[in-house]
């Protein structure tokens, strides 16, 4: 198992951890930031899998634009999730 494969598995575990955190957190702003981190790690995974074109699109759209849209939506509604 080379160092690159270990890095890919590590990044995948971190993506899953970020996604679980985004579902689990009750503070919606923290949840959105976890989702953005997960998306940025997905862009890193695309880069490790030799697809830099997709990685740039994922980093621009997934990590930046959706995070900004979610932050704007939270600013217009409530910040805490209700039970």
């Amino acid at each position: 198992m080379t160092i690159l494969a270990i890095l890919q598995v590590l990044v995948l575990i971190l993506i899953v951890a970020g996604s679980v955190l985004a579902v689990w957190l009750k503070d919606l702003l923290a949840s959105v930031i976890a989702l953005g981190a997960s998306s940025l790690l997905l862009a890193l995974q695309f880069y490790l899998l030799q697809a830099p074109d997709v990685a740039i699109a994922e980093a621009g759209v997934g990590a930046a634009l959706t995070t900004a849209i979610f932050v704007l939506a939270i600013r217009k509604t409530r910040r805490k999730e209700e039970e």
Partner: protein
Amino acid sequence: MSVVVRTIARILIPVILVFGGYVILHGHLTPGGGFQGGAVAASAVALLLVAVGAPAVKKLKAPFSVLEDLGGVAFVVLGFLGIGFTFFANSLAGMGGLFGAPVPSGPNPGVLNTAGTVPLMNWAVGLKVLGGLGAVLVLFGLFGGDDDR
């Protein structure tokens, strides 16, 4: 938002815009192109919107709409430039002038001034994506009144 976010945004927004322009300009040589560069530049607009709030950038909506229209029209006009052969024929490649240098044979690091209409189409797509996503972001920020919490 807080003064930390506003200060960081003031430093980072020009850098993000220049990087988006770099991705668009080198679209025919390196990974990336019109859509990716436009999305990167639009993330600068998103950062500006989150930092200073939507009512402060209300004036940007009309220029973004004009930019989107210009990008679409420029793309179709560049497609019609090759109509003597076929639609979208690359009539500027290898002719000298703007983006018309001949491509050297063999391994080379890539010559920027090549590829004819492809870089110009990248710019058209990039400006259209920047205008469209920027207008969507500004309209989304303005939705539902000006309650800025």
